[in-house]
Every structure is written in structure tokens, then in C-alpha cells.
């Protein structure tokens, strides 16, 4: 596609403070270990140490970032040797880190948004007896996520990849005395593991082809590989990305994952972990540039998911599930962009970054609402919260305007670029992306109307109140981020990301908006208008039993769970019990019948032991006669 533009930046050896980049991972890991091993003794100060885990990392990330800004562009990508990890046979993997423009951006996002969410969690989890453990898991997540983005090879990335999966499992099923939470955690882990098959297979292929899974070495060697295998690697990585980023067809876990505490949904299932798939695709852009089929597959997955997520988001009554559907949808945009090629890669990361802010903002806002409404998540029971929760409303509104793409807020710029790039790649993708934007505007307006505007529909005994300052503070910071990041980063982020994404950007002024941008804006306003008009009407306290098929399918997570249940749970269960039957009846049955047969034969044969010496004598005579007969006949013959 863009073979001329492809260039590979070789990282330089780390000097100065970069040599200590591993501390970004080690520090939260240390905090995790302390919090888990110290046990109840650390209950009183555990949450503070937990917050220090993220904030300390954020400080270090900022220092590294400033250092990087001060470095000349060709020397910005830095390789940090840490240690040899796995050398088994001829397979050799080092645990080295790569700090470049892309990974430092992620480190900033993860630790920055992470720090805010950690602060928020102090308030949100104040009454939970296991708050210390919660912070331990959050720190584990930070460490794993930073391993994921700082790794300089796929195998180390895989440690982080599985590590965030583990942290996600632990945090989704944090309230594991609730069966639904335990089930959701397990489901998330397993669906992710299906995706991991892709990453594993991709690594096997890379080892077999290149003898290495180092990003740089793979990027250099990939152009010499057979085309079929390049496409195969691309598809494998896409499967992995689908699992982690909840893309169709591996999307079903994300909606259930909302069983976890809301800060978890904000940090892991909105801002950071679920975007790891996009990171993987962008990081592997050298592979996708050589395979049209795989990158097209990425785009198709992205477009399908952005529409599917929007569909789900439009039908759910649960505020967190609306936001989860919206997350799927927005990551679909990022995937679409990542599939477009070098230009799209930077836009994908741009949208990822702004999305990290405004979606975390809205999730925390939703958490604030839940906090006020006694952990109710049904929007049908909300309404008119604007007055009682002004700060939450104000910050949430910022996120709302940002996600639907109202200029000059962040989402407008980041989404606009994707729509334009998709349009240039193929009008079909462009049109679908625009429709997605319109639906986004519709369901977000629906959410705003049902939650903050309209009439009170509160359940009895509920007296909503504004959340404490420790929770509102992060909301304000995130809201400011949602508002201004678009304008600030619009041009800078592409220039900054040019080396790792291999793209030479054009100058993009913040006031320059192409015609596709205006068209999208028109559609968005249309979506808002429809949402306003529909949900201005009174809303029933209980969800209607009978709904049209579109809503029914959306409410049931696009029937994915029903499909999974039918095919994998039922089918797999039947297969498993079939094997169990084979094991018992045939395999062990053969053994048992051998034993029984031996026993029965013995029972029959022992009857010949009559105790009469005459009959024994007769047996001997007969035997002797037979032997003699054989001998004589043998002679004769």
C-alpha cells in the first residue's frame, strides 16, 4: 500500500535516566507485593501506598518524556537492556524495554489517567473491607500494562498482555461473592485467552521464520518472508487484538466485565487495557503494510465493531453497559484507523488518547452517579440529576460533547481524522464511520437525557448527593483533558508519532476542517436531535417487556452470548461428557473387562482342581499321550 513510506527506526542504546525505565514496571510491582504480603497490617495505609504506585510512575514517565522531548528525533527511540529472560534450546528472548514516542505516550496515558482513577478509588472504595487488595490489583495492572507497552519484543509484550488479563480477571471478579461477578471475570479471561491463541501463533510463526520476536528484528526481516505467512501473522495478531480490545467476534466479555467496580471499568475497560489491541496493530504496522488482506480484515473488524458497539449502546438501560458498548464502538474507530495504514496509525493513537480521557471521565461520572443512587445502574431509575450533582453533570457533559465530536472538543479532531482517512481508503468505510458517529450522538444523547435531564424517576428512599472532593477532583481534571486535548494534540501528536508509525504527516491546523468533517458534524447534530426528541417523552420506570427485534438483539449483546452458549457451552459440554463417557465405558471399560475376564476365566479353570489325585493323574497321562502323539506324528510327517 505505502511501501515507499515504510521505514524502520533502530532504537539507540539507553543512557542517563532511560537506563532506569524498568523502574516504571518494578515500582508498582513492588507496591503490589507489599500490599498482598503485608496482609491486614497494611489496611490503614494500603490505599495511600497504592496511589503512590501510580503517581510515582507518572512522575517518572513525565521525566522520561521531558527527556525525550529534549532529544533529537532520530535518537528518541531508546532500547533499555534489562536482562536475559528465556533461552531454551535455540529460542532466545530477552526482557528488554523499548522506550519510544509511542510507548512513552502510552506510559503517560496509563500512569496519568491511572493516577486520577486511583485517587477517585480512594473515595469510591472507601467502605469496602478489601480496599487494600483492590489497590494491590490495580498496581498489578499498572505494572502489567507498562510491561505490555514498554516491551521491545512480542514475548515480553505477551507477559504484559496476559498480566493485564489477569489483573482484569481479578478486578472484574473483585466482588467474587457475587456469582455474576465471578462468572464475568472468568468469561473475560477465557475470551481473552482465545484471542491470545492468535498472539501465540503469531509468535510461533515469527520464531520459525526469523528466529526472533523482537519488534525491530521482525520489522527488518518481514519483507523477506513468504506473502502467505505475512498475511497469516497479520490475521493472528488481529485475533489477539480482537480478544483484548473486545472487537467482533470476541466482544462478548466486555459488557459482562462491567460487573467490576466502576474505577476498574474506567481504567481497564475503557481507557487503557482494551486499547492494547490497537497498540498491537499499530506496533506491528510494518507487518500490515505488506499484507493487503490482513489490513483489510482489520478495517472490516473495526467498522463492524463500531456499528455493533453503537447498536448495543443504543439499546441498553444500564448506564455502564451503554458506556461499554460505546467503548467497543470507539475502539472500532481506532481499529479502522489502524488498519488504514501509516497515516491511520497515528490517528488511531490520537483517538485512543483522547478516548482514554473522555471515556474515563464518563465512566467515573457514571460511578459518581451510582455512588449517589445506591449502586443502581439502571438509567430508567435516574433522571434530573443535573441539579443535585452539578459537578458530575458538568464534567460528564464535557465527555459527552467530546465523544460525539462537537468542535473544538477532543473527540471532534481525533474522530474527524479517522473519518477522513477512511473515506480516502474507501468511501464505504467513510460512510459507515459517519453513520457510526451519528448513532454515537444518538445513544449518548439518550444517556444524558435519561440520566441528568428529564423528570425524577428515583426509587423510593434514594437521596442522591454530590460525591466527595476526592472523587470530583479527578473528574474535573479528566473533563479539562477531554475539552482541550484535541486542539493541543491535533498536529503535534502526528509529528511526534511519525517515526514509530512510519508516516510523514502534513501540517494540520486546528481550524482546518475538510468537507467530511462538516458532513459528520451534520450527522451528529441529527443524531442529537433524534435522541432529544425521542427521550424528551416520559420514560417508564421498568423496561418494557416487548421490544422490537433491533432493540431485543442489542439488549442481548447481539445474541453473542446465546450463540456462545449454544455452540461452545452446550457443544463443548456435550463433547466433554462424550469424552468422559468414552473414558469410563471404553478406555477404562476395556481395562475393567480385562480384569473381569481374567477373574472369570480363573473361576472356570479352578473347577478342574477336583482334589482327586486320580483325575490329576489322568490329566498327566493325557498330556503325555498328546505329547507322544505329536512327536510320533511329527516324525511320520
Amino acid at each position: 500500500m505505502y511501501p515507499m513510506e515504510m521505514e524502520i527506526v533502530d532504537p539507540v542504546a539507553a543512557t542517563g535516566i532511560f537506563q532506569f525505565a524498568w523502574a516504571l514496571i518494578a515500582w508498582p510491582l513492588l507496591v503490589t507485593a507489599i500490599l498482598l504480603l503485608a496482609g491486614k497490617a497494611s489496611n490503614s495505609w494500603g490505599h495511600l501506598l497504592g496511589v503512590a504506585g501510580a503517581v510515582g510512575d507518572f512522575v517518572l514517565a513525565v521525566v522520561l518524556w521531558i527527556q525525550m522531548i529534549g532529544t533529537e528525533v532520530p535518537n528518541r527511540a531508546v532500547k533499555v537492556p534489562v536482562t536475559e529472560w528465556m533461552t531454551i534450546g535455540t529460542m532466545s528472548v530477552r526482557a528488554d524495554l523499548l522506550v519510544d514516542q509511542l510507548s512513552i505516550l502510552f506510559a503517560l496515558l496509563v500512569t496519568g489517567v491511572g493516577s486520577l482513577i486511583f485517587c477517585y478509588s480512594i473515595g469510591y472504595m472507601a467502605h469496602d473491607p478489601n480496599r487494600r487488595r483492590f489497590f494491590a490489583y490495580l498496581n498489578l495492572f499498572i505494572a502489567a500494562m507498562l510491561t505490555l507497552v514498554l516491551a521491545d519484543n512480542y514475548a515480553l509484550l505477551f507477559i504484559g498482555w496476559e498480566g493485564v488479563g489477569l489483573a482484569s480477571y481479578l478486578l472484574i471478579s473483585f466482588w467474587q461473592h457475587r456469582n455474576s461477578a465471578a462468572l464475568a471475570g472468568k468469561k473475560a479471561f477465557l475470551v481473552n485467552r482465545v484471542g491470545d491463541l492468535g498472539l501465540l501463533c503469531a509468535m510461533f510463526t515469527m520464531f520459525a521464520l526469523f528466529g526472533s520476536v523482537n519488534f525491530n528484528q521482525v520489522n527488518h526481516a518481514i519483507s523477506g518472508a513468504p506473502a502467505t505467512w505475512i498475511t497469516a501473522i497479520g490475521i493472528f495478531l488481529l485475533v489477539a487484538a480482537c480478544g483484548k480490545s473486545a472487537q467482533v467476534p470476541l466482544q462478548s466479555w466486555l459488557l459482562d466485565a462491567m460487573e467490576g467496580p466502576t474505577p476498574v471499568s474506567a481504567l481497564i475497560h475503557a481507557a487503557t487495557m482494551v486499547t492494547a489491541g490497537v497498540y498491537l496493530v499499530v506496533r506491528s504496522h510494518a507487518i500490515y503494510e505488506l499484507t493487503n488482506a490482513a489490513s483489510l480484515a482489520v478495517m472490516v473488524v473495526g467498522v463492524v465493531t463500531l456499528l455493533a458497539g453503537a447498536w448495543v449502546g443504543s439499546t441498553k438501560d444500564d448506564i455502564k453497559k451503554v458506556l461499554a458498548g460505546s467503548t467497543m464502538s470507539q475502539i472500532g474507530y481506532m481499529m479502522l484507523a489502524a488498519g488504514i495504514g501509516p497515516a491511520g496509525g497515528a490517528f488511531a493513537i490520537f483517538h485512543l488518547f483522547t478516548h482514554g480521557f473522555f471515556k474515563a471521565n464518563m465512566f467515573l461520572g457514571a460511578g459518581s452517579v451510582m455512588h449517589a443512587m445506591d449502586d443502581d445502574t439502571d438509567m430508567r431509575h435516574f433522571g434530573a440529576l443535573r441539579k443535585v450533582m452539578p459537578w458530575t453533570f458538568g464534567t460528564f457533559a464535557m465527555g459527552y460533547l467530546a465523544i460525539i465530536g462537537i468542535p473544538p472538543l477532543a473527540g471532534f479532531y481525533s474522530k474527524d481524522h479517522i473519518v477522513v482517512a477512511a473515506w480516502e481508503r474507501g468511501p464505504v468505510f467513510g460512510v459507515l464511520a459517519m453513520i457510526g458517529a451519528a448513532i454515537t450522538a444518538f445513544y449518548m444523547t439518550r444517556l444524558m437525557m435519561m440520566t441528568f435531564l428529564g423528570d425524577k424517576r428515583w426509587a423510593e428512599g434514594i437521596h442522591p448527593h454530590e460525591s466527595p472532593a476526592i472523587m470530583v477532583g479527578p473528574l474535573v481534571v479528566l473533563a479539562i483533558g477531554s475539552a482541550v486535548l484535541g486542539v493541543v494534540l491535533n498536529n503535534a501528536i502526528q509529528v511526534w508519532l511519525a517515526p514509530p508509525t512510519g508516516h510523514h504527516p502534513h501540517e494540520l491546523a486546528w481550524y482546518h476542517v475538510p468537507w467530511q468533517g462538516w458532513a459528520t458534524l451534520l450527522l451528529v447534530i441529527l443524531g442529537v436531535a433524534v435522541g432529544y426528541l425521542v427521550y424528551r417523552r416520559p420514560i417508564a420506570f421498568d423496561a418494557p417487556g416487548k421490544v422490537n427485534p433491533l432493540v431485543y438483539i442489542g439488549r442481548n449483546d447481539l445474541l453473542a452470548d446465546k450463540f456462545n452458549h449454544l455452540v461452545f457451552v452446550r457443544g463443548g459440554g456435550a463433547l466433554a461428557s462424550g469424552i468422559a463417557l468414552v473414558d469410563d465405558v471404553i478406555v477404562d471399560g476395556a481395562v475393567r473387562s480385562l480384569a473381569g475376564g481374567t477373574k472369570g476365566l480363573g473361576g472356570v479353570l479352578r473347577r478342574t482342581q477336583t482334589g482327586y489325585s486320580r483325575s490329576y493323574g489322568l490329566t498327566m497321562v493325557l498330556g503325555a499321550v498328546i505329547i507322544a502323539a505329536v512327536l510320533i506324528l511329527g516324525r511320520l510327517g
Partner: protein
Amino acid sequence: MENIPMLTILGLLPLVGALVAFGVKGRAGRNVAFGFSLLTFAVGFAVFHMSLHSDLAQTVDWIPQIGAHYALSVDGMARAMVLLTVILTPLVLAFEWNNDTPHLAAHKTPRWDVNVFGALALLVEGFALFVFMSADVLLFYLFFEGSLIPLFLMIVGWGGEKRRGAALKFLLFSLAGGLVMLVALIGVYAATSAAGNPTFLVSEIAAIEIDPRLARWLFAGFFFAFAVKAPMVPVHTWLPDTAEQATPGTSTMLVGVLDKIGTFGMIKFCLGLFGEASQWASQLVIIVAVVSIFYGAFMAITSKNLLRLVAYTSVSHFGFMVLGIFAFTITSIAGSIFYMLAHGFSSAAMFFVVGFLVNRRGSAEISDFGGVQRLAPVLAGTFLVSGLATLGLPGTANFAGEFSIMVGAFRVIPVMVFVSVIATVLAGLYVLWAYQRVFTGEPTEEVREKITDDLGGRERAIIGVLIFLLLFFGFIPRFGASVSEKTATATMSQLGIDDPVNGSIGGK
């Protein structure tokens, strides 16, 4: 130092300890046994290090008429197995510290006193060490069969209601395999005699050209014995029955140490002595290995009993090891050896945590549990970590083993690897589903009544050591991998196969 027969000392030490522990009655005997196991650990660790720099091999004529030798040596794989054995035995003894107390409701009254358990475990350890160190096939065979007796007695002496039947099943399966191997052993002797040099020394047999048709029969004889031991489908059914009835300590000695003789023997004897026959049989063996992987995984998913579940996970994991061995690449064979070590630790950890549960609840049926996390959070945490190691999470030792097996095998048999990698998802299912059913939710009245305490100090120490080892070998696998690589390279040159080069997949 050169003249001290370190390997003999290492092998004899637990046997002497066993005799002493038989003599000293009651808990004092148990303490003696534990002391000897620690001493053996120290010597074993010393051997592990010394063998790195010096050749500790020892060869003495034993029965010169038939060319049998008392020959011991340790190569890379044997070092790993020695390490595994000397680490696991003290842990098993510590786990069965109080197995003379009647409160272990799941168990019928023990047949013998606790010192006998220690003595038998030491016997198993000593025999296993000799098995791993033997450089003579006849010597190997003697200890291979000899180890069955103390283990049989361990099953008969301690465990559930139907332990006698289970012990018999274990013994009959093992004997069936062992006797087939004996026939092959005599065949080896016949072959070496025909070549003019009757011998049982492994190194000398390997140098002799055996008629390919005979070699295939001999290979089959050895392989059958090891397949029963390892256990592979369809000769695996003794393992779940045994694990269900025996105490977790016995099961750990069985699965953690003795079953490794199966895969150990496949590398040392099947590949080492009958290279051509191994290649001839490899396709069938690989298919059986993949069947084992899935069969074990599915059976683990359907298991209603925690101990059976752990046993079936082992069937699945042994399938991976055999897959790696018969893929014939340095990486996959080295990975298999590493996985043998890792699986020893992870299966021990699983048996122990399940044992902690069983000792409290008096049952291993999954349906008898629920919500245990609320009552015993540390137990839940250790179960989860052990389970995650079992399912091969990166950062645990099992991942390094499984991953390198598949990386190596992929170069030769990509389709089989594509298929078997799916088992990692099933592994996630059987571990997390078991965790969910046992630990999450609200505890029932009965569970609340029975499970009153979390892990005590001794229990924490045991499981802590294992978790440390699993993480240590997961993040720093090179300590275990460096020893396995030498054996893998040597085996490959013995086979006469070149390791596949970069850029070739499936031989293309």
C-alpha cells in the same frame, strides 16, 4: 573430591534414611525422615552444582557375564530431575506432617504410623534418584520396577475408602508396562550379544547398529512402558483413580517425580537408543500426544472431584511434553525437559492446595465447596496462583516450558501446534471454573462449619516455596533451561537430525 562417589552417596542417603525411619517409631521417626530428606536435598543440590564442572560418573562391573554395570552418571536432564526429586520430597513430608491424626476426615484410618510414610517416601526418593542417574539399562530397570513397591504401599497405607483397588490398578498398569520393557531389555541384550559385545551400558548400546526391524520392536517395548508411566491416553486411567484415593502427598511423589520417568525414559532410551525407530513412530506418537492433550483437558473440565481434576491436567501436560520430545527440535526437547521440571512444581502445588482443602472439608468433591474465599482468603490466593501456573500464565515456569515446546515444534509440525495451542484455552477453563465453583459465591452452612481456619504457618511455608519456585523459574528460566539444552543437543546429534533453520515451517 574426584574420588568420592557423590552419586552413590546421593542415592543411598534416602535409602539409609528410610531404614532408620522404619526403626524409629512414631513422630520421632517422621522427624528423622524429614531430616534425611533435607540432607538429601543438600547433597542433591551439591551434586547439581558439582556436575556442572566435573564428571561425577561412576562405572563398576556388576554382572560381567551379561555385561551389566553399576553405572551412574548425570547429564543435563538428569540434573534437572535430581533437583526436582530432592526438592519435592521434603515438601511432601512436610505436607504429610500430621497424617497420623484421625481428623483428616476424607481418609480412612492410616494403616501404619507416620514414620512409615516418611520411610516409604524416602524409599521412593532413593529409587527415583537411582533411576535418573542410571547409565545402565538393567540398573535403570531394577530401580524403575523397585520404585513401584514403596509407592504401592503408600497408596495402600493412606488415603480414601477405595484405596486398595486404586493401588492394585496402579501396580498392575505399571507392571504391565514394566514387563513389556523387560522383554525389550532382553531383546537389547540379544542385539548387543549378536553384535559381539553383550552390554547394558547406555553409551555402548547407543554405539551399536541394531537391525532396524528389531530396533522398532525394542522401541515399542520401551515406549509402551514409558507411555503407561507418563501416562498417555489410552493407558492413563490408573492415574485419576490413584490420585483420587491416595493422599495428596503420595500423588505428588507419583505425578511430580515418578511419572517424569516416563518422559525421561522417552528421551534417554527411546530417542537415545532407537533414533531411527523413534522417527519412524513419531507421527503416531505425536497424534497420540495431541489426543492426550485434549483428552486430559476435557476430562479435567468434566471432573467433579478436585483430585481427579489435577490428575487429568497432568495427562494433558504430559501430552505437551511428549509432543515436544517427538517433534525433534532442540528447542522443543529442551522445552520438554524444562516443562518436566516446571510441571513437577506446579502439580505439587495443585495437589497441596487441594490437599489443604480436602483436609479441612473432608471431601474433594467440587460440589461440597463454594465461597471458600470468604473463609480462607490465603488458601484461595495460593490456589489461584498454583492454578494460573498450571494453565501456563507467562511469568510462571509452565509457560516457559509450554511455549518453548510449541515454538520448537511449530517449525516441524505447524498444524499439530495450531491444534494443540487451543488446549491453553481449555486449561483456562478447567482452572478458573474450578476456582469459581470452590471459592466464589457465598459459602454454604456446611462449608462454614468445616472450613474454620486459613492456612497455618507450615502450610504457608510449603506452598510459599512452590510458588516461589514457579515464579523463579518463570522469570528466570535459564537456571533450568541451561541444563536441559545440553541433553537436547546431545539427543539431536544422537538422532542425526539437524535442527530446523530459520525460515522453514513444516519442513519447507
